């Protein structure tokens, strides 16, 4: 069965771009969330939209599921292969088709790396605003699937705010354009629904992105506090005064310790928390806002506030923050990266609750997060070699997600639901909410072939009539008239 499909794929792509050897397939058994592993039945490498459409069409015809994968950096298992399915790797679709400064647009293939778009746009004075931490390796196609954010989305928004058009292969193998170079295309905003659908509505084969004018000035403050409470209070004070920085990032003592061990970023000694506040825009605005932010940090108890003097100093400030995930490896053999969101104002309370959970289970938690928008990235540390530690770490990690739900936030701010958090979806959403999302899924993918098993826990089949539609409304059942 799969051998027939493999031959079909070889006919479409040529023999060199289809992998069916078990050992070679193993290379693709996981994405950035490496503890989920599934060896796919086939891996294929289309080079353009037509090939991608042919590949997906062949899957549809054979009734075989497929999973799209860009650079494979996702942290929720969104690109985890299907054991009986085809992994469609878009990494070789990496042409920057056009950069237009006059239109403030770039048109790229999905395998193009996020940072390459900004590099290509720099000559025209522009950049591509969404900047996930993995921007040196993650692909635009993956960004579209995950609606990726980054440190600067507090001011600039997410991928969905910066993509104006996509060409997609729908799960039945058709190429369709949603949106385009011009804004506000007529009809339903299927582009908006597609971005962030985690590969469950089809595969992006070409992406048109909005380019943003490079700011005239960027200023970066590093403020050191004794406690995370103080740093949280400073964040709230900055927002309350009507300043929206480009980024507000926080790290706690354990995260700072890890970053120092890894990259010697030279953060102020003895800090219980540091805050990175970055402001950008016209010089006349940024200078005033920087002073405002500095004053508010000091008022909230900052014992040292550094103003990065130049690009090199700014890079050093960011180095500590951006390396924090990997740096944790220096202080712990294993760790879980969590991603959840809480209302910003709940930050101090939730941090205390995380501290309690950590103490109760004897599991260390390093906190690194986008404080400006309440997006937590707790790093739960453990040693897999010690019996029971992994389980306890999992418990604490789950308790943190519980807190996000309890405080009215979200189970994921930027890493996606993928395979990792599908089980939490019924806690954030009602059965009716999920059923409504399934209506969209069924419109695009009635046979459920596009990245099945992700985002939604046990979705109903598209042919099924949902239970609630079979019964009458309670008022009707009570015998009250239904016509007038």
């Amino acid at each position: 069965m799969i051998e027939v499909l493999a031959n079909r794929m070889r006919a479409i792509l040529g023999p060199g771009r289809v992998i069916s050897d078990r050992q070679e397939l193993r290379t693709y058994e996981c994405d950035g969330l490496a503890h989920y592993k599934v060896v796919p039945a086939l891996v294929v490498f289309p080079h353009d939209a037509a090939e991608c459409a042919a590949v997906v069409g062949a899957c549809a015809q054979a009734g075989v599921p497929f999973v799209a994968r860009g650079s494979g950096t996702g942290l929720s298992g969104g690109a985890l292969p299907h054991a009986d399915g085809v992994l469609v790797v878009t990494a070789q679709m990496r042409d920057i088709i056009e950069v237009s400064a006059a239109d403030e647009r770039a048109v790229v293939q999905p395998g193009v790396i996020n940072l390459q778009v900004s590099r290509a746009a720099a000559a025209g004075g522009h950049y591509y605003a969404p900047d996930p931490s993995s921007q040196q390796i993650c692909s635009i196609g993956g960004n579209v699937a995950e609606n990726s954010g980054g440190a600067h989305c507090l001011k600039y928004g997410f991928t969905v705010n910066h993509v104006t058009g996509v060409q997609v292969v729908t799960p039945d193998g058709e190429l369709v354009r949603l949106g385009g170079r011009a804004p506000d295309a007529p009809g339903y905003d299927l582009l908006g629904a597609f971005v962030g659908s985690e590969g469950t509505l089809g595969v992006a084969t070409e992406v048109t992105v909005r380019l943003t004018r490079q700011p005239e000035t960027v200023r970066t403050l590093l403020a050191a506090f004794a406690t995370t409470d103080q740093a949280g209070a400073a964040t709230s004070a900055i927002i309350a005064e009507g300043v929206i920085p480009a980024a507000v990032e926080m790290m706690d003592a354990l995260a700072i310790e890890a970053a120092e061990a890894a990259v010697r970023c030279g953060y102020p000694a003895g800090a219980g928390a540091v805050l990175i506040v970055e402001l950008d825009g016209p010089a006349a605005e940024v200078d005033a806002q920087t002073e405002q932010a500095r004053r508010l940090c000091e008022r909230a108890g900052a014992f040292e506030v550094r103003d990065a003097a130049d690009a090199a100093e700014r890079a050093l400030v960011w180095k500590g923050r951006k390396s924090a995930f990997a740096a944790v490896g220096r202080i712990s053999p294993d760790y879980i990266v969590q991603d959840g969101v809480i209302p910003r104002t709940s930050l101090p309370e939730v941090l205390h609750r995380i501290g309690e959970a950590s103490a109760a289970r004897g599991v260390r938690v390093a906190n690194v997060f986008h404080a400006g928008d309440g997006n937590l990235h707790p790093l739960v540390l453990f040693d897999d070699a010690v019996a029971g530690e992994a389980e306890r770490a999992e418990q604490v990690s789950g308790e943190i997600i519980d807190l996000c739900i309890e405080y009215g936030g979200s189970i994921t701010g930027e890493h996606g639901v993928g395979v990792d958090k599908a089980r939490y979806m019924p806690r954030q959403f009602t059965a009716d909410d999920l059923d409504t999302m399934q209506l969209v899924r069924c419109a695009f993918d009635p046979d459920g072939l596009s990245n099945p098993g992700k985002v939604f826990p046990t979705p109903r089949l598209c042919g099924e009539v949902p239970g609630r539609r079979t019964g009458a409304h309670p008022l009707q059942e009570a015998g009250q008239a239904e016509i007038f």
Partner: protein
Amino acid sequence: MTAIDELSRPATDADVVGGVPARRVAAPASTDQAAALIAESAGQAVVVRGGGTKIEWGTPPDRLDLIIDTHRLTGVVEHAAGDLIAVVRAGTPLHELTLGDQQLALDAPLPGATVGGTVAANLAGPRRMLYGTARDLLIGITVVRPDAVVARSGGKVVKNVAGYDLGKLFTGSYGTLGLITECVFRLHPRAPAAATVTCRAGDPDRAGRLLAAVRSAQVAPSALEVDAEPGQEITIAALVEGTPDGVRARAATLSGLLGGEPGKPGVAGGTGGTPPWWGVLPWPDGGVGLKIGVPLSAVPDVLRAAADAGVRIRGSAGTGVLFGGLPGEPARAAADAVAALRTAATLASGHLVVLTAPPPVRDLADMWGPVPGLALMRRVKDRFDPDRRFAPGRFVGGI
């Protein structure tokens, strides 16, 4: 009493949608009431109405039994200032939102427009250049589906990628997928200072150069608007918002850019308030209203084609979203002008939609033009509203 008896009244002569009379008008005061109403009225054709400011937009409904009026679905449910979000009921008029020193940064071109209607039509004004449209500001939504099921998506935090973003799908859906009852928006602080620089910009070529100059300068405008009446000189206006010192410096830069070409008409308005046409849709009562979207570099092409076709253009030259207005009579001439301008927009990889027009023009002109992805849109509609109850025929391709 049934929900319908309790919440509705017989329609009057005023309760007409695109010339089609309704039979009853119902005004639910909560999401639950709305759901009960929609369940009870199964099989009936429904059009949702907010402030009624855009009720004549779109194609007329194929059939109409019930108007669901949202004027009782009003009020701010929650304003979490520290989190910069607000939960607002759909029938709340935009101009009645009081959010202290924060704002929902959606300009309402039509006075009396509601939150729900603005979302459903995805209508935005000049400041969309900086803040985006309803699509960008909406972070959560509550809807009642055509089968009376209440569903929510998104939430109350800005950063959230859990599940599909149904808010995007309902934004600009013209009430064809169900009733929006509640919206959660991200808010922005009100800027302490603002200034507008207005200038006469000559012909489309010169206007194009000036617009490009503003976009490439470091002034970070909140809005960059154009107003072009056929036979008249084009006007450009740019708005900057920020701190008093910053705004002063940026407005000075703008004045230099816009008035600095020697031998050309200079700055007309200086750094005062916005010009009278600012944020006002450019068509007369009974006229034809257009929405045009084009790549930024094609804005001068639209200005040229519009001048030739006798269409007044006004709107966001900084994003490439322009409104067009022309008289509704004679109908043939109006339809020809629409077709000519659509050709220009389409050639430039853009699009043109007729938002509103008198019936004789509607009979002659294609309201929507080409719609890529229409087959997929029909499939979405079929899933949400298999009986075609909600605004049947009001949207693209007869959806």
